[in-house]
């Protein structure tokens, strides 16, 4: 993690922890994502969109038990500027890749969420540098 990202993350956490009003206007709130649980999704990438204000990753996720139809998820990442400073490149994920994603789901129940980390086909695990990531409680991955 780059120094700048660490400071942004630490700053956001400290601001949140101190109950200080968040900077109005800088970047949108992450309050619409569930901070109490995570989902682990294993699926096929349909789109990896390298654009601001956030990159997006879209996945087709089959039901592990085979009883439900494939579910399509839209995942929000951070700004591609933060990701690039963290070492990400636009060609790291391609349509058709099988990936494992840890997400904080959208509270509305829609099939969408905030990507906390993604594991690529070769085993590389990438984090988009979500600010205040420690405020997202992780659910253990199902066996």
């Amino acid at each position, binding site marked *: 993690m780059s*120094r*700048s990202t660490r*400071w*942004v993350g*630490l*700053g*956001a956490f*400290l*601001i949140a922890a*101190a*109950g200080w*009003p*968040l*900077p*109005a*206007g*800088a*970047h*949108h*709130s992450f*309050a*619409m*994502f*569930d901070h109490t649980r995570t989902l682990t999704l294993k699926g096929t990438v*349909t*789109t990896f*969109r390298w*654009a*601001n*204000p*956030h990159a*997006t990753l*879209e996945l087709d996720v089959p039901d592990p038990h085979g009883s439900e139809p494939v579910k*399509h998820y*839209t995942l*929000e990442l951070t*700004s591609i*500027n*933060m990701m*690039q400073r963290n070492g990400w490149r636009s060609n790291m994920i391609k349509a058709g890749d099988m990936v494992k994603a840890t997400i904080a789901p*959208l*509270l509305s129940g*829609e*099939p*969408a969420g905030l990507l906390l980390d993604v594991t690529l086909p070769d085993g590389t695990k990438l984090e988009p540098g979500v600010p205040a990531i420690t405020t997202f409680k992780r659910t253990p991955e199902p066996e």
Partner: protein
Amino acid sequence: MKSSSAWRAAAIGAALAAIVAAAAPLRARAQRGAAPEAKPAAAVPDISGSWERYGGFGRGARANDPTIPPPNPPPPLKGEYLKEWQARVQAARDADAKGTPLASNATYCLPEGMPAMMGATFPIEFLQSRVQVTIIEEAFTQVRRILLDRPQKSFDEVEPSFYGRSVGHWEGDTLVADTIGIKEDIRFQNAPHSKQLRLMERIHLVSPDVMWDQLTMEDPVTLEKPWTVTFAYRRMPNYTLLEYVCEDNREYADDKGFQRTRIGSGK
């Protein structure tokens, strides 16, 4: 139709005005140079290049480091404005707690404007020239220009904008800037301000690689007293700012003013 003598008077007047305007910066410099100071004026430092926000986000982080500024105080708002601000902050906090954040300028991918852009959420670049200091913040590609050795206009002459109109001059090693004309809906930490908001900045190095912007907000309508905040930056010698275009904004406000997210790949 004007008489020839009136034309002549107008022409002489215009010529004199041009000479006075051209001489003003020289006079200002001469006056500053002539001040009976004990120590010689420090040289203008080289602040060009990329910088990142440093230290100032938290409270008490590395408290013993003198290059880390003190925590920024809350806005010293007058009674009715203080109530409005507290209500707004509480409403945002309540909405966040319910998982339905209030829409803000960020929802629409609007830039922060002044003075929030100086908070440098993303890296910030300073470019010095003889006549202007240009500041670029990477997020939203925000740009402001500090015109050097030029007079400030009156509040009525400056149209409201995100970054306002900045003029400045070097006082030894310190860049002193004066900014007016910030749109009333461009708020710093949600604090309300009037058309008479004035930002006074003192930008200077506190060590070879750490720079402070001590920024004082003055507003006779909303503030009890001047409100000073300090942003610290450290050099990023090998960093070139990246572009930032809000190309795929998926956030929007619903009819109740809550922020929503568009999902799926539909354009």
